[in-house]
């Protein structure tokens, strides 16, 4: 279990900072992944997620800080690379090779034996549902299929630390569901994973931990439950449907004590208020008391998406 003392750290990043000229893309990020940890990295575009992942596998030079994989420093240690797998959002491939040839090339690059390579190719092609496409050229594949080849490429050498940047982009709904299962099974095998994604509803399902990045900083990091609690505390977002539009709705609602973040649209009202059934009943009574024609009333669940939206992260332009 990751919390036990003495468990080997699979990936340890200490005070990592990456700069591009004057721009600091990653600022002083530290984290430590143990077997079975699946960290979901979320944040707006330009938050530094990809840069952090690239730095973690040595593709990006660190301005400060260090990365250790299985307690071995990454710098210049090529043997460490056997234990790391990384897929970028658009995995690069040799278009003119067939899927099998490309994966064979990857196996050779990791110095696997010929029989081992074939065995692993069959195994992973089945896992990513590409067995029928094995002898098709990569240039003939759709984006989603390429994404699957990219995942197979990453997993072929059986790395202990797996970093996937937007792996579900381009996958169809069925593919996403299968992919979630795959990630969960890798997590249960004791591998350490970092997955960056904008599909927050999926991440709720398979992540053990969540890191929220903004402007290069890791502004929140912890288990999924903890992240939810840290943001929600005693507040909840409510969505109210109106039977008819109300003039100066926002101004009216803001008069109710403890109400905040009011967003009024035509026949819809969103606001933040105290959490709990009694508080919800009280809020409903006050709204009705103000003469607002409430047609529907719901307290939003404390999902990851909700957490992220409530983190007040500014979008990077």
């Amino acid at each position, binding site marked *: *279990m*990751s*919390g036990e003392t003495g468990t080997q750290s699979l990936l*340890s990043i200490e005070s990592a*900072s990456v*700069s591009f000229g*004057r721009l*600091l893309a990653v*600022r*002083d990020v*530290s*984290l*430590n*992944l*143990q077997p079975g*940890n699946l*960290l979901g990295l979320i944040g707006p575009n330009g938050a530094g997620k990809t840069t952090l992942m690239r730095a973690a596998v*040595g*593709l990006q*030079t660190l*301005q*400060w800080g260090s990365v250790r994989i299985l307690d071995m420093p990454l710098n210049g240690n*090529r*043997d460490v*690379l*056997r234990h*790391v*797998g*990384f897929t*970028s959002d658009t*995995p*690069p491939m*040799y278009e*003119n*090779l067939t899927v099998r*040839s490309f994966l*064979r*090339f*990857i196996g*050779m*690059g*990791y*110095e696997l034996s010929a029989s081992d390579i074939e065995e692993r190719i069959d195994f992973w092609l089945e896992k990513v549902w590409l067995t029928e496409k094995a002898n098709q050229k990569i240039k003939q594949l759709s984006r989603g299929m390429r994404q699957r080849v990219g995942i197979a*490429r990453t997993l072929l050498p059986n790395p202990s630390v797996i970093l996937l940047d937007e792996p579900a982009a381009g996958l169809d709904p069925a593919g996403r569901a299968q992919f979630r299962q795959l990630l969960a099974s890798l997590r249960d095998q004791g591998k350490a994973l970092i997955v960056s994604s904008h599909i927050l509803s999926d991440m709720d399902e398979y992540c*053990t*931990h969540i*890191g929220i990045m*903004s402007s290069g*900083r*890791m*502004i*929140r*990091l*912890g*288990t999924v*439950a*903890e*992240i939810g609690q*840290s943001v929600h505390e005693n507040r909840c977002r409510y969505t109210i449907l109106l039977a008819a539009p109300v003039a100066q709705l926002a101004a009216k609602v803001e008069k109710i004590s403890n109400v905040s973040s009011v967003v009024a649209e035509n026949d819809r009202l969103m606001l933040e208020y105290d959490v709990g059934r009694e508080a919800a009943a009280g809020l409903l009574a006050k709204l009705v008391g103000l003469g607002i024609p409430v047609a529907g009333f719901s307290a939003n669940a404390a999902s990851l998406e909700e957490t992220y939206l409530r*983190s007040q992260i500014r979008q990077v332009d």
Partner: protein
Amino acid sequence: MAVYVDNAIYWAQMRIRGGWKSALVVSLGYAGVAGFLITLFYQLAIYSGDKRRVLGAASSLVLVAQVFLMLVLGGMSVAGSIRRDVTSLQIESHRLMPLSPVQAIAGYIAGATLQVLTLFVVNLLLGAVLILLLDNSIADWLAVNAILLLFSMSIWAAMSMAAFISRAMFGLFLGLCGVITFSGGMVLLLVPGLLAFCSPMQDRTIFQSTSFSRINEGTVVAAVAQVLLGILWIRSAARKYADGNAQSMTVVPALAMLGIWAGLSWFGITEYSHMRPSSFRAGQIDWRVPVVGAIASCLAVALLSLGALAWSNISREEKRGDGRKVRGRPWALWICVAICVLFSIVPLSGRMNEFDVYPARFTNPFGYKVAGPKPRDLPVLHYGTRPSVAMIACACAIFLVNAYLLMRLIYPRMRRANALVFFIIAGIWFAPLGADLIYYNMQTPEVTPHMDRIALLSPLGTIIQALDKPVDRTWRGLSGQGMFAAFLAVLYFISQAQLRRDLIHRRGSTAAPPQGPPAFQSIADSAEAKPVAS
């Protein structure tokens, strides 16, 4: 063998080009077409009684095709395969493999040139058949191909390095090939180091079908230099393969390259009369031209080590600005400049044959050698009236310091700084020479222009003057160059202060505590936490 058999990059590059099957089909198709055409013309030649001429022309064509294949197609294949992987980011996928960078570069070269090499073998066999039909020496044909193969392999190594640096490098290489081709090899006379390096163009060149170059002293020296430089270039490419942000050539390998080049330049001058292409044997050449060319080319190569030093010092200062402890090395520049100057004046210790310098003394007006004392090999400086090595060394040193200061000023501020540095240096070298050329053409169009006025502001002008009999103005010109160096030094010290401020500003912005709730520690400390955070 591991490089070829187990090398993943080689395997992939080979497969991308269709593998062995495709290479064999292309080669057999090419052999069939070429064989058919040669047979056709041979039969026509028998009919017309012009057999030897047709066979001779066919063997020359095979050789031209061989050169085109090996240098142009081979070079383009190597550079193209690397550039494609760099631009498509495939190289990043490769970097994650535990493959040694040198092995990867060897894989690129071997895989990308597989088809070229199979066609090379086909041409070799076709040529051998033609040579046998002509009753010429098959050993000569094999020697020619061996010379070409080794030279091409060193060019492939250079291309692998160039492809990692920029697309412009590939253009530069093609430009150089174009200059050599369109000048008919004339440029080799101006740069003795290049003459000593380009073994196919030495002496009778590989293109003279009646008397192919044999393996001689020049070929052996060129082969050794090609291997040594090839190793340095592959090492540089391997550094860029491992880390795209790394310097391709660090100071010590760059100095080693300068040393090899200085040796080649010295050898090129000393063996000038034997090695220069036979088509350029006739006519007198100003003895100062190859010497100045040798020194100038050494200075150009020295820029690599200064560039490496400049980048290294910039990076050290950035680290220092970040608050890290970096040991100072105040003497590095001066040691580097001293070594570069020493290597750059090595060509002055070369010897040239009197016959090359004063052919009129040893031949009659009809071009036949006259009886009398044999022309001697004399030290280069012997031909000057009162040559000044000190002045040449000073000009070299000032130029190198200028170049270093320019690099330090421009590198941190521009992305493609090398192009600007290149143009400024070209201006410093050639603009003053051009000014004197225009001045003398306007004043005394009938007299060969002297390089003794504005040209003295150029290091080349100073070297040209100092080789023979420096005029009084030469020291003034040198002072002018020194003053420019002082101006650059002042600019440099001013800019350093600004750079330091920038670094401190950046450090300050990084050191600022993260905004937002301190979730990192507090969450990790909580009882429920699966401690991602330490």
